[in-house]
């Protein structure tokens, strides 16, 4: 058992019961939900309106050594949903990116992705609030 920092898209969480084994990140079911928002239900692994059915051979769960608790392999689930991930063992930090349905075939409709970002004063602005105007959007950086 060791503590890991998990960066799951917009969330940053600490998982105290994480059991990393090489590329595999095993979490308790409670931590799975806290870290990623996914929950293991009878119909599958679910978050918001999406449920991913669990394959018959149950590759994502196992029991702890004392058989008292179920653990979930977030890495194997990530592979299944086309989600990239990377980990830094020196600092026990894991990063999980967007699921396949978020990055595949994106931008096919030419519709600019909506977003919400703060300005220097912390006020949030979205692209959708500018609908009805032409928008010149410029990305830049200080370097």
């Amino acid at each position, binding site marked *: 058992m060791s503590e890991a920092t998990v960066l799951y898209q917009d969330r940053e969480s600490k998982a105290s019961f994480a059991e990393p084994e090489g590329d595999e990140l095993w979490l308790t079911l409670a931590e799975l939900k806290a870290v990623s928002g996914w929950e293991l239900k009878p119909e599958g692994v679910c978050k918001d309106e999406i449920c991913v059915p669990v394959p018959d051979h149950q590759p994502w769960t196992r029991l702890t050594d004392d058989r008292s608790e179920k653990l979930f392999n977030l890495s194997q689930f990530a592979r299944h949903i086309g989600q990239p991930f990377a980990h*830094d063992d020196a600092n026990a930090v894991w*990063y999980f990116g967007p699921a396949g349905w978020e990055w595949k075939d994106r931008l096919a409709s030419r519709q600019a992705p909506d977003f919400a970002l703060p300005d220097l004063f912390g006020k949030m602005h979205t692209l959708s609030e500018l609908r009805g105007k032409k928008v010149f959007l410029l990305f*830049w950086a200080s370097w």
Partner: protein
Amino acid sequence: MGEELKGQNLEVVTVAADAKGPDAAEAFIGTSKHPSLIDDKLQVAEMFDARNVPAAFWIDESGRMVRANDPVYAQRRNRETGEVSINNQYLDAVRDWVVNGGRSVHVMDSERLSSRLPALEPDDVLAAAHFHLGTYLALHGHADDAVVHFKRAHALRPENWTYKRQASSLGDIERDYGATFQEALKDPASGPFYPPLDLEGRG
């Protein structure tokens, strides 16, 4: 430019795609009147596949992109004098779009737009994962440990200059990446730093 064209229904929005966030941006944004946004996790830049900056996108009234990933200094401010130099050719193109809308010759057809916004592949998102992990480590006091992840991102996506430039701003480029890397960053002519600016939209 924003002020000139605002009366004609054009909104200029700048996004600082910079992990150093508000501190770095503040020095440059100054007293601009347009929305100047901060994308310190570089997630929005990634959604638009802005592989290097500056990258400009034109979005029409219905939210559709009509130009994508233009590598352009439409407006550059001299750091010492504060003087602003403007790429007039590009500004004229923007003015043309404001006046002519969808009929402007600068509006990109589907083929051109697709070439500026290629479909993502697993290696693209894996490179991004390592890049984001490296950025997080560097910003949390582990710049040395970040290097291996930046290098992985560079190896997976060598044409992505955002990954290289951000890594160099967060570390010691000569020590971590070698002198040749440093030279390449300083000399845009040494590689495809920016795609050529092509103002045509069709044909």
